[in-house]
């Protein structure tokens, strides 16, 4: 290769060429600017969503095990034995020493009325330690306590979105009576908002009542939907999982080799699943955005071909003065590269701005990561080289005599 003097010359010529056709260069760059901005924004949205889900799940606590009947989200098979009951909860409470707290949930939808307002809500029967196990807080008033549960008292704690759905201010509801399935309940408190981005974990529209109240006054069954169990430390997760499995298998009289009629899930697994999902989503968005970058790249190729034919005489002259094929090739590649990298830099700025705007005005969580920026730079360089190569090769193969004669 030529020395540093040659590199300097090549970059200088590329900048000169771009400067001498400012409007054209800017228009060409625009394709890359938009493409890179789209990629940056889409990745920022995707990674932001990923981060939000991650934080939400982390805030729920990862040292929690959830036990459900059946063998998966959608497979409830296993007949009569594939049920979880309050009895199972008791067995686990006694048998699994690594489990610290345990909180069952049984739920059903009921008509709820307050004055003239009414609505359909999911009513969850749970234990008094629900807030501790699930890492939740009460905003106004209080949660029900163990005595109220034991006494099957008619108390209810509302999810943060319930008062609004009933058209009443939260403060006004606390201490008042609401009716659930025509049974009167006293509102003890309103939960803190969990947030809309909590997705399937959002309980803002649920109403919590003591599980024994639910069992005997509302639902008439001891079958539960699931129970959550906290463990003392993350290191005893496996131990707790084993103990729960053992206790439940014995309670359900499962023979060795028979598959479980329940399903133990830990939050780290869920986290992994969601991370994977949102990552796939990010790739998809970025892929779509990359198509616009491709279009921008074709624009670069087009303008480089124009540039080559406009400068045919110059190429001829440079060859006459001793430029080798490779020198001409490098010169035009660098020109395409400079166009793409400049466009890429502007695109990163624009994309970061758009991501900020999304965060600011739409309230979406966005994240412009250094990886995304690096990727964008690498991508625009790759576009420059890929789409610049053919025009540059054409230039390098020109016959010097014909090029010099070109009008």
């Amino acid at each position, binding site marked *: 290769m*030529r020395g*540093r003097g040659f590199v300097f010359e090549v970059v200088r010529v590329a900048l000169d060429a771009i400067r001498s056709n400012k409007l054209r260069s800017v228009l060409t760059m625009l394709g890359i600017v938009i493409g890179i901005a789209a990629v940056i924004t889409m990745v920022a949205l995707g990674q932001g969503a990923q981060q939000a889900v991650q934080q939400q799940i982390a805030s729920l606590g990862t040292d929690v095990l959830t036990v459900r009947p059946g063998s998966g989200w959608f497979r409830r098979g296993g007949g009569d034995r594939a049920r979880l009951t309050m009895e199972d909860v008791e067995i686990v409470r006694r048998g699994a020493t690594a489990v610290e707290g345990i909180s069952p949930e049984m739920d059903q939808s009921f008509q709820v009325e307050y004055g003239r307002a009414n609505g359909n809500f999911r009513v969850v029967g749970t234990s008094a330690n629900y807030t501790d196990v699930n890492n939740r807080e009460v905003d106004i008033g209080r949660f029900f306590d163990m005595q109220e549960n034991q006494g099957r008292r008619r108390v209810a704690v509302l999810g943060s979105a319930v008062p609004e759905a009933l058209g009443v201010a939260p403060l006004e509801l606390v201490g008042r009576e609401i009716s659930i399935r025509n049974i009167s309940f006293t509102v003890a408190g309103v939960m803190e908002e969990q947030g809309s981005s909590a997705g399937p974990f959002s309980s803002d529209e649920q109403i919590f009542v003591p599980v024994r109240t639910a069992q005997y006054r509302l639902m008439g069954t001891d079958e539960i939907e699931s129970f959550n169990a906290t463990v003392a430390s993350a290191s005893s997760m496996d131990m707790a999982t084993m103990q729960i499995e053992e206790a439940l298998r014995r309670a359900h009289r499962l023979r060795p080799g028979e598959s479980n009629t329940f399903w133990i899930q830990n939050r780290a697994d869920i986290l992994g699943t969601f991370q994977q999902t949102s990552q796939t989503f990010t790739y998809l968005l970025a892929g779509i955005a990359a198509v616009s970058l491709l279009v921008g790249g074709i624009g670069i190729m087009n303008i480089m071909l124009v540039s080559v034919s406009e400068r045919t005489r110059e190429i001829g002259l440079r060859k*006459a003065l001793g430029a*080798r094929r490779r020198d001409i090739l490098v010169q035009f590649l660098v020109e395409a590269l400079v166009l793409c990298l400049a466009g890429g830099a502007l695109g990163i700025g624009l994309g970061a701005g758009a991501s900020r705007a999304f965060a600011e005005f739409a309230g979406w969580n966005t994240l412009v990561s250094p990886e995304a920026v690096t990727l964008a730079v690498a991508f625009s360089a790759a576009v420059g080289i890929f789409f610049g190569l053919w025009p540059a090769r054409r230039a390098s193969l020109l016959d010097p005599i014909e090029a010099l004669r070109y009008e």
Partner: protein
Amino acid sequence: MTTTAGQKSSAGATASIEERAREVPIVTRGLRKDYEMGAETVRALRGVDVEIEENEYVAVMGPSGSGKSTLMNLIGCLDTPTSGEYWLDGQAVQDLEEDELAEIRNREIGFVFQTFNLLPRASALHNVELPLVYAGVDREERRERAAEALEQVELGDRMDHAPNQLSGGQRQRVAIARALVNRPAILLADEPTGNLDSKTAAEIMSVFDDLHASGQTIIMVTHEHPIAAHAARIITLRDGNIESDDATVAADPVAEMVDS
């Protein structure tokens, strides 16, 4: 006299061409060039034998279509012959790869064109630097040598001017500086005064005369006899063959001085 060597070229042909090429910078034997023009083959050169010695001042003349441009392109290593041999400074040009030809053009040949062929957006200095860029010379030295070459053609005060800020004569002098900056063995000028008025043409020709006087080998294509008269030897081509190859009266610089 250098001219006798040129005239005796047919006699030299009996010696091995390698031996001859060791003594004479430019030797061609049976140089042919055919072009395909559609279905037709144009025979631009039909076997040209030329020898040009160091420090010769040669004009190539001939009507258009005589093959003089083709000969210049071959001598300038811009093209390779269909058959025949061309030895430049002891190297067989017909055997070289394209990149090697580029290197020879860079080191051995300085081109001066009728239309100057300067880069319009680059300063005079930058234009003159170009051959040094491809010679791999670093920036400092490039600048120094380009400035030196511009001073040699008396444009030391116009280095930062763009071509459109210079007169035709000045542009051609920039082009001459560019041709000389890499100290080439041969200066190849293709109708160097074709785009200039007669006063400016005379000015440019005196630059060539001075260069020749200082030892530069010059080959020049022209169709104007007064311009060709500056050379010491005139090769006339017709239909791809050498029609005549003669010394001129003005060959003697002293005689020329007496003339003017």
